[in-house]
């Protein structure tokens, strides 16, 4: 029963290449975040998150072998991310909308410091 023929075996250069890219991206993101002259202001967070997403994609495609797997497994991962996005979008939209009201309330009803 050698049904294993068609299972993809990742070659070592691919694994090590992926690892090297991941390490490189980690160094870049840490360097960017700790050096004063690499300041991107409001683009800082999107930039770090984009680097993280590239890293995550590398792990998913080559370590988890989604690049050579049945599409179903990739669909599952992507749909879980879509539902995560749905959850975050609505929650953020709503909290952002009512945030100013909470802010105003706190200003007009100051509590004693450290009441709990």
């Amino acid at each position, binding site marked *: 029963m050698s049904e294993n023929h068609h299972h993809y075996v990742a070659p070592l250069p691919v694994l090590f290449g992926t690892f090297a890219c991941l390490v490189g991206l980690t160094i870049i993101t840490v360097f960017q975040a700790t050096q004063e002259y690499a300041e991107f202001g409001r683009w800082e967070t999107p930039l770090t998150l984009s680097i993280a997403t590239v890293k995550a994609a590398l792990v998913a495609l080559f370590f988890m072998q989604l690049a050579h797997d049945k599409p179903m497994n990739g669909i599952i991962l992507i749909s*879980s991310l879509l539902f995560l996005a749905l*959850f975050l979008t*609505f929650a953020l*939209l*709503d*909290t952002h*909308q009512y945030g100013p009201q909470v802010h105003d309330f706190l200003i007009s009803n100051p509590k004693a410091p450290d*009441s*709990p």
Partner: protein
Amino acid sequence: MIATPAQLEHGSDAPASNYLNVNKTIASWAFTLDHKRIGIMYLVGIAVSLLLGGLFAMAVRLHLWMPEGALFNEDTYNQVFTLHGAIMVFLFIIPSVPASLGNFFLPIMLGAKDVAFPRMNLASFYLWVLGAIFFLAALLMTGLDTGWTFYTPYSSETHTAPVVAATMGVFILGFSSIFTGLNFVVTVNTMRPPGMTWFKMPLFLWSIYSTGIIQLLATPVLGITVLLLAAEATLHIGIFDPKYGGDPVLFQHFFWFYSHPAVYIMILPAMGVISELLPVYCRKHIFGYKFIALSSVAIALLGFLVWGHHMFVSSQSALATVIFSGLTFSVAIPSGIKVFNWLATMYKGNIYLTTSMCYVLSFLFLFTIGGLTGLHLGSLATDIALHDTYFVVAHFHYVMMGGALIAFIAGLFHWWPKMFGVMYNEFWGRISALLVFVGFNLTFFPQFYLGSLGMPRRYASYEGREGFPVSAELLEQFTRLHRVSTVGAMVLGVGLFIAAGVLLAALFYGRKAPRNPWGGATLEWTCATPPIHHNFDETPTVDDPYIYANLEWDPDEGGFKPKPPSTPTPSPEHQPVG
């Protein structure tokens, strides 16, 4: 669990060995990996939960007989309705159809020997038991009084111990539910028999599959929510509790991201049961197969977009409120598709009013009322007035109880002969269906009226007090309606006890059931009654599961049997497809 020789060499119509008597030791039940036995164990646990939750419901109704409250003080009343809700939701409805009937029949309908991961299936059952124990612990402590929704800040300020016990219970039950859903999704995906394409699957499997998707995507969020809530109550992490800078509305977002889809975890399997039963008792091919199948998936997905409609008056922002209100109506489309297809299936059908069919008809009536009153609650303007009144209580009882519970009972009556190999008393079964239907409407229809009059839910009394003034005229109306509702609850209770009695009596006195008493065409009716340990000796061949022309009544056996091969098999195109 080792298959005995007796089991392998059966072959007669009534095999000596079946899954019930293959091994009778307690250990063989406790450590069984057989999906049928796990389904039966779930059924027992679920029935006990239903009894417990039902007794709490009776207590609530009796308490409200008097305007000032007849039985308990306010604190106890809070605990009683909380336990009624929490037990019914988490211990009864969510596992009801999928974990018992689904576990039993999903592999059989697929012609498979078992679900994909039998050990995970057993683990799921024991997690359910463990979760139930945590609930009992919460019950025996000072008592859980937060309502089943655990809203902060109340839940982080009231007695900590029962909240922690109950949230841990919910966490564990969540895993139980995830395991069940995962198992079913994988089983349907990978273990369909040759020839069973997606659109040849019985509709019950479609609904269980859609339920599995919701269980997988929504339940983990409940897990993290209750975990954070327990941390909030004990450590004060300040995420949900405003006293510590947290955001209580965020808790509601977390909670309803699960709990709204959970409503569809409860109702989708019930819809699957109805789709399975209706064509059998109408002796007619299901109308609009693809629409029913895909509307299950549509309900599962749309169900994720509407959770904010529980928060219209909870300080949710106006923008989110409007968006959620609009999206809410979209769920009506697939639900409507299902109802119309069921009605079209019945049209010109040859309807047999068996006990199951009586329950199916009650389902259609009650679910439609439940669904239509949902439109009142989805519209912003009316919801502002009706929110947190008995109108809401009536609405979700029509859907949850009139929908999920009634369909569960219908399914039990339908499949009882297959599960235990015995026939029950049809007369008393129909009496129970009638009593349940009448009692149900008597209980909950007045509550729509109560709610529109302004009776808030979860109140221990309605005699009037500061913040809730009740005029003498209103008090009279409240009292009358509450008493009608209480009387109805008693009738409903009697009906349910008769139903349980009919089924249990059949175990002892029922005549032996034939292989196919109702003339169903799905695969479970081709295996032995009760099924043998590994379901089928050889993987059965699969045809359209809703063609009944190939079956004929066999008076000797008292059931249906396949027509002799000499009769030319009508091809699906010649069938009335609606």
